[in-house]
């Protein structure tokens, strides 16, 4: 039976791990992820979830235990935030290089120093180069759906890569929203049993990942890139298929809003995507031809989608919730890179907002849009990166 529940994104992540019939969870608590593992502990101990929860002693061990379990042939799950994710960093590389379909939720939180428990994307975006797929969710329903979709995607033989499903700390992780949990039988039909590209097996002894010389290493890296390209094709397909089965779709790689005739398109990630829609509606009432795009998948980066949008637009404005110090926001950079080689490409402006959990409302976004429109009419951006509402 499908059920309608009202719960936080963290708890919903637990429901999704249960629905995906995950067999081993290895995780370590960290604000604001903690309630994910608490929910899973509940499920496992009351028998609702037929799995083992390894209460590891650090996030680094959490990721490595998942690697071990996945290599030994079962579906795995973990969850973390900020410094926990950073602590796993070398293990993230190991997981993707091992081509293991691990799925992890990241309850996004700003990196320290100094300590912050509030959301931004400095944690997950810092890991963009690790060979993990990255999804950014805008509401709790999407968190559930994306986790299920991620297992199907990652365990596809054309992919076999791990994925992180990101949800902003407190804004989603601790906020109650209605979510429809589909019927388990239907989920089982959609998501087949665990599959991976290789496994430890006494019938076929092998050594995994011993030393690879320069003679071979590049080809293994090429294969990861190839898998990312395949994922780019599969993600919209799986999203549509999921929509057909369960009634919810989230835009595939990017969720477009009123972009068809837009002169200016705002690009956001996560919950800012929802706020942006309100801003767009208000600007439209004033007669402005504006639209917004929520980049749902950051890795693989939806280059082709951006290129297509670039054809009919005068300006892109990227609103980043993280900066690469010494350069600019990641979304801004990657958008510029996606369209750079076009003969005539739109202006691109980068805005930084919401770092360390500073609230980004539709009013903030409206202000960003209005400033962008002014630059658009001027034909040039005033500066490459604009920090929004910065104290003087």
């Amino acid at each position: 039976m499908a059920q309608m529940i009202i719960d936080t994104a963290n708890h919903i992540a637990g429901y999704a791990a249960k629905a995906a019939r995950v067999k081993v969870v290895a995780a370590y608590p960290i604000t604001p992820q903690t309630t994910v593992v608490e929910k899973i502990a509940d499920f496992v101990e009351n028998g609702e979830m037929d799995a083992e929860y390894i209460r590891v002693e650090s996030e680094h061990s959490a990721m490595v235990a998942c690697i071990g379990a996945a290599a030994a042939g079962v579906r795995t799950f973990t969850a973390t935030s900020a410094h926990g994710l950073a602590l796993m960093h070398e293990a993230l590389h190991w997981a993707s290089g091992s081509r293991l379909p691990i799925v992890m939720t990241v309850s996004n939180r700003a990196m320290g120093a100094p300590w912050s428990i509030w959301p931004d994307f400095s944690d997950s975006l810092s890991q963009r180069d690790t060979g993990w797929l990255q999804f950014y969710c805008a509401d709790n329903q999407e968190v559930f759906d994306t986790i299920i979709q991620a297992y199907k995607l990652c365990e596809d033989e054309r992919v076999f890569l791990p994925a992180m499903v990101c949800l902003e700390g407190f804004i989603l992780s601790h906020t109650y929203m209605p979510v429809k949990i589909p019927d388990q039988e239907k989920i089982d039909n959609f998501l087949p049993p665990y599959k991976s590209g290789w496994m430890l097996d006494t019938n076929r002894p092998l050594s995994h990942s011993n030393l690879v010389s320069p003679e071979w290493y590049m080809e293994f890296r090429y294969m990861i890139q190839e898998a990312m390209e395949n994922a780019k094709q599969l993600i919209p397909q799986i999203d549509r298929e999921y929509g057909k089965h369960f009634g919810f779709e989230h835009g595939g790689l990017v969720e477009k809003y009123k972009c068809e005739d837009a002169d200016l398109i705002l690009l956001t990630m996560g919950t800012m995507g929802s706020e942006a829609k309100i801003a767009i509606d208000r600007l439209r009432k004033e007669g402005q031809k504006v639209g917004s795009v929520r980049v749902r998948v950051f890795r693989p980066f939806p280059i082709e989608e951006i290129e297509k949008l670039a054809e009919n637009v005068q300006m892109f404005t990227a609103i980043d919730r993280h900066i690469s110090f010494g350069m600019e926001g990641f979304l801004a950079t990657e958008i510029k890179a996606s369209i750079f080689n076009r003969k005539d490409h739109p202006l691109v402006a980068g805005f930084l907002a919401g770092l360390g959990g500073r609230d980004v409302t539709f009013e903030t976004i409206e202000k960003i849009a209005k400033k962008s429109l002014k630059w658009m009419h001027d034909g040039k951006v005033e500066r490459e990166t604009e920090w929004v509402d910065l104290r003087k």
Partner: protein
Amino acid sequence: MSVTPKTRKEMPLTPISYPTVGSMGKTGSWRTFRPEIDYSKCTKCTLCWIYCPDAAIMRKEDDSPIIDYDYCKGCGICANECPTKAITMKREEE
């Protein structure tokens, strides 16, 4: 046994290596000294067999040892441990 892939398509998706005798080639080429067994002194105690780090000494049916010189690195443990001094280390001829 492992087969060296000839093209990228033959490579596994992640580095997987299969058990191979001589993964480092014929390691007997590392030797400076080679062990030689005087079978008249050998009591077939099998100590040389168990102590060889390279599994380069095999036990025949009657427990007498036979050295695989393709892989013996000439470490000299067998000679050092043989209770009847039946094994001596001789310098490899050029």
